[in-house]
């Protein structure tokens, strides 16, 4: 089999400040990756910065949420005959070096999905304590609702076999899509593995990212859409 094409989906909402650095790091790490930036209706120069790089740029006409942006990028990658789809954050929290082990796990070991986890190795990422507690509660919630034994339920770094993702049908537009993906993994009985990744908690990402309090919103989103 020829070298599988890896498509990295980067949802970006008002990330003009850090997007350039994130894209530069990704391109330096592996120039063969196809980068897809999904500008989720930003009001800053996110699109302008993306245009300075050799990336595929998709622009939502309005802000729809990270889940929707990911789904758009993935749909696009599938239509471009992607083999592997990777989800990656624009805010500079993730390390490009963590991508390849995930891709390798999917390609070499034939898994449907490889998930990044912040908790598999000794935490060298200086995660805020409250956030740690909330994420632990998230793993318990996930175990109860899906039966999956996963150490990190809301990690945005994952690699999927493209054909698998096409079957998942992600409908959560907001942040609850991370739980939704796990539910789908359980429902479709996908083969998965968690691999350690390092998340850098920069001042920017702490300010920009989800606060621990957003867990309440995620629960609400899940329940209000649950009946559909």
């Amino acid at each position, binding site marked *: 089999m020829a070298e599988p094409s890896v498509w990295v989906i980067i949802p970006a909402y008002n990330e003009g400040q850090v997007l350039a650095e994130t894209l530069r790091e990704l391109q330096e790490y592996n120039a063969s990756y*196809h980068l897809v930036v*999904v500008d989720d209706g930003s009001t800053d120069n996110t699109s302008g910065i993306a*245009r300075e*790089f*050799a*990336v*595929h*740029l*998709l*622009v*939502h*006409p*309005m802000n*729809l949420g990270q889940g*929707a942006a990911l*789904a*758009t990028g993935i*749909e*696009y990658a599938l*239509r*471009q005959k992607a083999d592997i789809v990777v989800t990656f954050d624009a805010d500079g929290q993730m390390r490009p070096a963590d991508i390849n082990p995930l891709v390798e796990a999917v390609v070499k070991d034939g898994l449907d999905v490889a998930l990044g986890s912040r908790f598999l190795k000794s935490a060298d990422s200086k995660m805020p304590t409250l956030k740690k507690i909330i994420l632990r509660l998230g793993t318990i919630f996930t175990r109860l609702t899906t039966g999956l034994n996963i150490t990190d339920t809301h990690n945005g770094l994952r690699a999927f076999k493209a054909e698998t993702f096409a079957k998942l049908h992600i*409908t959560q*537009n907001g942040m609850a899509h991370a739980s939704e993906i796990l539910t789908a993994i359980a429902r479709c009985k996908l083969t998965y593995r968690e691999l350690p990744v390092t998340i850098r908690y920069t001042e920017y990402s702490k300010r920009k990212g989800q606060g621990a309090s957003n867990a309440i919103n995620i629960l609400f989103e899940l329940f209000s*859409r649950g009946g*559909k």
Partner: protein
Amino acid sequence: MITIKLILIALLLVILRAFLVQKSLLLIKRAVAVLMFAGLLILVLFPDISTRAANIMGIGRGADLLFYLAHLFFLLVAVTLWRRTITLNDAVTRLARELAIRNAERPNEKAD
């Protein structure tokens, strides 16, 4: 007493008309609307009826009965609107997605 009745009747008719002028309205919905407004009209003209109906159902006052019914009605409206919002949101998302994908800007250097 007469003035408030006139105001209420006028308002009822205005709202009923606003509802019925919608062209694409199912006949069944028109019928239900007319019946509901007829009922309200009767209640405005003869308020004692609600008290009698309430007593039959073991509720003290007619106003209480109307209060409960109004509550149920608005809950129904809220749930209906909420469901419709979800459907609309999904449609908008799909539309935005298709638009974004069709207008995708591809990298210049890479020919893939």
